[in-house]
């Protein structure tokens, strides 16, 4: 201030100005710092918000992951519940025939029968139930399909069980009927009822019928798995042979088809899609007969999609009845060659 004091007029003014200037600049510096800090914290907030947004954006990935289970559910509908397919009345008894989803499909069908008497309670006094699917050709001749004639009784659940392999759907001019005989207290009654056989949309339960090298007619029906997965699957199939009717036989329909025993179904699963180049899978096992008469093997599906089960059927003497060896080469771009005996599946 001393220096300024020497300046007569301007001194106080200048001093004031200088003081104010200095003060202001300090102040403004402070303000600047504050401003900066505020800016930084607001940037921080902004960045945090931004980070959060990015987090959310990432967490909800750009592309959704495949819901594998849902996709399998969509592609194959699995039926696990037995529901009433038809009820037949027979001399005071009500015969309730159950099938999976309450529908008879072309191919293998497990059936369950429950008999109720007039009073509405389950009849326990049944000594035998026989089951016979009949189809009527256009010329009126009666025919049947592979089936279990004498049904098995399951005491604990109180029903009879068996199966039928419907070889055609009702749509294709076939008229199907079920003929069921009950033996109650030594008295046999027989009833017959028309039924509807629908096409099997699940290709994993497809069937094929063919004439073998032995000139016999065969039916192979897939029994399981209904809903395969990309995994090792237990493959179940029934193999049935048509027996030429014996003219003398009165009840020829009953014996028209019988399960074959001691056969082998050699398995070679492949993807026929050209882009898959005849892709196959490892660790498969040929189908061999089990105690219950069905044939069991192992099939591995390495991915979802179309597969062909290529078979070679050998009889109990090891002779080829039907089927050809398919090439094992990897041939991208070429539709896979299928065996003369095969079933296409899809899941």
């Amino acid at each position: 201030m001393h220096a300024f004091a020497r300046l007569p007029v301007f001194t106080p003014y200048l001093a004031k100005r200088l003081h104010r200037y200095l003060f202001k600049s300090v102040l403004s510096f402070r303000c600047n710092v504050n401003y900066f800090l505020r800016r930084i914290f607001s940037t921080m907030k902004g960045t945090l918000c931004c980070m959060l947004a990015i987090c959310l954006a990432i967490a909800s990935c750009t592309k959704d992951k495949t819901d594998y289970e849902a996709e399998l559910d969509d592609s194959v509908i699995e039926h696990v519940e037995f529901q009433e397919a038809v009820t037949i009345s027979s001399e005071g008894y009500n015969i309730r025939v159950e099938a999976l989803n309450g529908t008879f499909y072309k191919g293998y069908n497990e059936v369950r029968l429950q008999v109720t008497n007039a009073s509405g309670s389950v009849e326990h006094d049944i000594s035998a139930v026989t089951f016979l699917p009949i189809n009527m050709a256009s010329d009126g001749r009666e025919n049947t399909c592979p089936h279990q004639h004498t049904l098995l009784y399951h005491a604990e659940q109180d029903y009879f069980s068996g199966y039928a392999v419907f070889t055609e759907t009702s749509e294709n001019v076939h008229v199907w009927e079920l003929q069921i005989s009950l033996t109650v207290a030594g008295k046999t009654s027989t009833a017959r009822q028309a039924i509807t056989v629908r096409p099997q949309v699940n290709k994993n339960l497809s069937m094929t019928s063919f004439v073998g090298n032995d000139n016999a007619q065969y039916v192979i029906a897939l029994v399981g798995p209904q809903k395969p997965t990309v995994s090792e699957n237990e493959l179940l199939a029934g193999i049935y042979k048509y027996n030429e009717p014996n003219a003398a036989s009165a009840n020829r329909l009953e014996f028209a088809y019988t399960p074959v025993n001691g056969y082998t179904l050699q398995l070679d699963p492949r993807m026929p899609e050209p882009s898959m180049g005849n892709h196959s899978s490892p660790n498969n096992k040929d189908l061999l007969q089990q105690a219950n008469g069905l044939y069991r093997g192992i099939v591995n599906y390495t991915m979802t999609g179309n597969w062909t089960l290529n078979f070679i059927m050998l009889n109990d003497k090891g002779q080829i009845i039907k089927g050809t060896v398919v090439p094992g080469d990897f041939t991208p771009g070429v539709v896979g060659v299928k065996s003369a005996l095969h079933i296409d599946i899809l899941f």
Partner: protein
Amino acid sequence: MLMKRLTLSSLLLLICIKAVAQTDSTTHIEAVTVRGKAKKKMETDMKISVSVDEFLASSESISFIKRGAYAWEPLLNNMGMERSNLTIDGMHIFGACTDKMDPITSYLEVNNLATVDIASGQSGNMHGATVGGSIDLKRRNTAFAERPTWSGAYQTGFEFNNKQVFNLGNVSFADQRFVFDGSASFRKAGNYSDGLGNEVRHSQYTKLNSAVGMAYKTGRLSSVRVDAIFDQAKDVGFPALPMDLWLSRALITSAAYKQLFDDGIVKAWDSKVYYNAVEHYMDDTTRPENLVHMDMPGWSTTYGLLSNLQLQRGRYSSEVQLNIYDNVSIAEMRMYPQDRSNRTMFAYSWPWVTTRYAGLSLDNNWALSDKSQVNLGGSLGLHYNRSKYVEFNRIFHPGAPQEKTRALPSIHASYQLQLNHIHFSAGTGYGHRAPSVSEGYGYYIYNSFDRYDYIGNPDLNNEVSYEVNASVGYRKEKFGIDVKANYFHIDQYIIGRILSLGSPMNYQSVGVKGYTSLDYATLFNVSIKGDYHLSHNVHWNALLTYARGQDDRGGNLPFIRPLSYQTALHYSRKKLGIQTSLNRDFAQAHFSPEFGEDRTAAYTIWNVSADYRFAFKPCTATIQVGVENIGNTYYSTYADWGNIPRMGRNIFTSLKVNF
């Protein structure tokens, strides 16, 4: 050889020590975070502006498998990613691509890195079980400052061969209580041309990376820090593969708490929780030659915790670290039939594989005298795997367990001696590693190098490594030479072998290979490094490396670098620097035909660059111009996937401004 931080960072260490020595009362935090100051070193001899890959390539122990111009797969001690620990500040993060198209180094950018710590062999077990060693990428981490300080850098440049443009910027603010680090970078490159002038199609890439970090000082000796990195690569071509990358993104986040102690044996305690998510989507629609259209998305999500204690008393110092992480890796493949009305075909190539690891690592150092010290360390980890859709794995391995728990022990010891001009070290180690997700649970992962589909085996045994290593060096004022060697004997070495089972799924492939364990394999690495100051201005250095890998029958292991050398001459005068380097790989005599390798011819690459530094207050700037592969040599390296040719002559320019 415990703290055998090979590196790149021995120099840094010096800087660190200097910085520590200079610190005043504000202090220790700076001491611990001082690595941030090493940012100047994220460059190589030849280039001041490099990619992370180029930077790593300047280390003698790292080589690369290259599938194109982007996302090279680092090999440490000639061992792939599954044998080494790749971490970011100790955080585990796993790529989401089954074809290793996204090593984690591809999710970073040089301007958010401070340095890279490379530890060889078992000395790299601080962050978890390993065989080959560890590569820890250290992020930039500015220290608290006495007065509010802004600093930053900006790099830009253009590379002519592939028309690469890059812009990298970073800025930091620090005061007594608060630190902010931020960076953003953008790179875009077109196809490069090989030495014959042919354009290598599908070698373009675009990369965006940004990072923010904030630290707050909660007490005189404690601080918290949160970090996040976001990285996105789009439209990345992989000329060696039948498909490209449409998009890959990574979000890498962490929150850390650090406490320092004035007295007592515990000096620092540093804990961190982290989360990272990676998504990776391949794209084959740009390859009309492909017979099959295929989607191959992958996701990898990791949560983790790490807690590190640093102890010191007198001549004894120790580091204890707890590592815990949980990772889920998912990869899908969906093939589209030629008749698109047919159903698509779907499978998991990683069937939702969970990996959990919890381990404690310990590293002790005793300075026996001023001249010698002993390191002794070890780790014990529990490693758990679970495959959600184990039925995929059971197709090739019926009855394989859904869950598997392994114990992964590791120990290592080393001795270091420093005489007048000679230093010497010797060490040994023993350690286990668990199979990687692909090795354990991979399902039809197509390898375009040997053209096989690979199948993992959940029942693989741990790989068990026995190693010895030694180094000897001599240094006198103007001259230094260093010889390092290590030898690994790895029992139950995991490698793919042709399976007689099954058939390929990917249409390009020729067969199926399954990961199996060899009885053993051996790997030998040796490097000789020398430097000489010819005069005050002229400095020469050279590096010679050799490696040999053999399986139990004496056959060659794949991806082993042949004899190679790099030599460089630097001239600096005032603000000008000129350098030239010569890199040569000799012919690959020990190749592995089983893995699709063929004899790769020798090649020599000559590079030259010049830089000039200048200052305009408050900034300093460096400008550089250089040429890589001056002779326009047409070549591919031993580890170029499918023998794709490398880049021909490339003129690069860059400008770097620091303030």
